[in-house]
């Protein structure tokens, strides 16, 4: 058998097993945008038996970043002596009345970087400018920002700043579990978050809320394997945390990366698009490193932020609405001209739905 044939056979076997194990409608939620993309792209929603439904949770860092943050970034971009350094997917995210892309067209110095270290290099290369790195992302990305801030400290670089909005996914997951509207039978845990955090921060899902959860990798087969393990738990009426991505997720995570987060960030209470404020779900730069906290170092005037009332991104992020329930979907809101963040990011549910079609997705019916 060729490798492709082997994979196909393995997928067929897993699907068959899942079908045998599950004898009632179940709903599993993936809490990672990279999973969302992989699931849509590989057509897993259509392949799974009718009774097994996958819904996307708030797993796309760009999508959960509220207008308030974008407006702040835009306010910094307006300053003549500031260079904004950001991951590319932030550019099209609409703020209340503008976007970084529009600012860039209007002449603002906004540079796409691949790594926070590239932003630090821009600071070294441009001593007369102030560089503001947009620190967005979950536990996977937060230690990179932290290590970069530490590196800036070691080199005593004075023109590098971070607009920090890193977030804890486990805290958001707990907020979801406390929401009575949300009915989920199990979770695919975000593999690359767990690479950093290990499994322990998600233990409450099983212990306190009695829901099965499996750490999943990102190939179609990885995901099917994780769904199979969830199905087994459902069948056996178990609730435990399992790891289907052991080749990179160690039980204890990456200890150095966790220490970097702890050394640089304190817990904060940020707003998540759609979910509102979630206590202690955010990371703000602590006092020791406040020299690198742009909010503390450079004051700017920001417009009053408002969310677009027609965008249903919030309910989409909770798995309560499908993109096609949104009156703007495909009509006004498209990947080229996104009205909401869930359409901007390639990891957003609206974007994936637009690109790959709806699959079989009938949450709430």
């Amino acid at each position: 058998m060729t490798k492709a044939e082997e994979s196909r056979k393995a997928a067929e076997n897993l699907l068959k097993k899942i079908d045998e194990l599950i004898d009632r409608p179940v709903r599993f939620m993936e809490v990672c945008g990279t999973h969302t993309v992989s699931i849509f792209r590989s057509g897993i929603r259509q392949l799974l038996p009718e009774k097994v439904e996958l819904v996307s949770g708030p797993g796309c860092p760009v999508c959960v970043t509220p207008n308030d943050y974008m407006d702040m970034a835009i306010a910094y971009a307006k300053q003549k002596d500031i260079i904004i350094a950001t991951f590319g997917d932030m550019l099209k995210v609409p703020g209340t009345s503008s976007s970084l892309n529009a600012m860039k067209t209007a002449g603002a110095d906004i540079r796409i970087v691949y790594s926070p270290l590239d932003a630090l290099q821009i600071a070294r290369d441009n001593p007369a400018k102030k560089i503001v790195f947009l620190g967005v992302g979950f536990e996977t990305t937060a230690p990179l920002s932290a290590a970069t801030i530490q590196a800036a400290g070691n080199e005593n670089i004075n023109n590098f700043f971070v607009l920090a909005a890193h977030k804890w996914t486990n805290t958001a997951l707990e907020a979801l579990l406390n929401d009575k509207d949300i009915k989920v039978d199990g979770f695919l845990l975000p593999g690359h978050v767990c690479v950093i955090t290990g499994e322990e921060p998600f233990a409450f899902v099983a212990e306190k809320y009695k829901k099965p959860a499996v750490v999943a990798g990102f190939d179609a087969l990885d995901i099917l394997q994780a769904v199979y393990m969830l199905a087994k738990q459902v069948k056996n009426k178990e609730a435990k945390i399992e790891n289907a991505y052991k080749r990179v997720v160690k039980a204890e995570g990456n200890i150095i990366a966790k220490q970097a987060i702890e050394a640089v960030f304190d817990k904060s209470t940020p707003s998540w698009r759609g979910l509102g404020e979630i206590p202690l779900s955010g990371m703000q730069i602590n006092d020791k490193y406040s020299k690198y906290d742009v909010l503390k170092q450079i004051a700017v005037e920001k417009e009053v932020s408002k969310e677009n009332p027609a965008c249903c991104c919030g309910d989409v992020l909770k798995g309560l609405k499908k993109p096609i329930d949104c009156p703007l979907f495909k009509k006004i809101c498209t990947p080229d001209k996104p009205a909401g963040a869930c359409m901007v990011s390639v990891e957003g549910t609206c974007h994936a739905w637009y690109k790959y079609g709806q699959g079989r997705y009938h949450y709430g019916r």
Partner: protein
Amino acid sequence: MCLAVPAKIVEKKDMMATVDVEGVQRQISLMLLPEADEGDFILMHAGFAIQMIDEEEAKFTAQLLKEVAENDES
């Protein structure tokens, strides 16, 4: 955004490594994975190595998939 990809370290110098990702070479930081060495397979994310890839565990997954298949035939 949490996209991370496997890469092989071809050269290590202090806390920086040259890695090979499907034939393309790039520089990444080992600040968060100082124990990584030349020849190791690592997972990288936005310019940093973030974890070692365990080949033995990769085999474990292959084994599990085989089990599902064998079960099926029995």
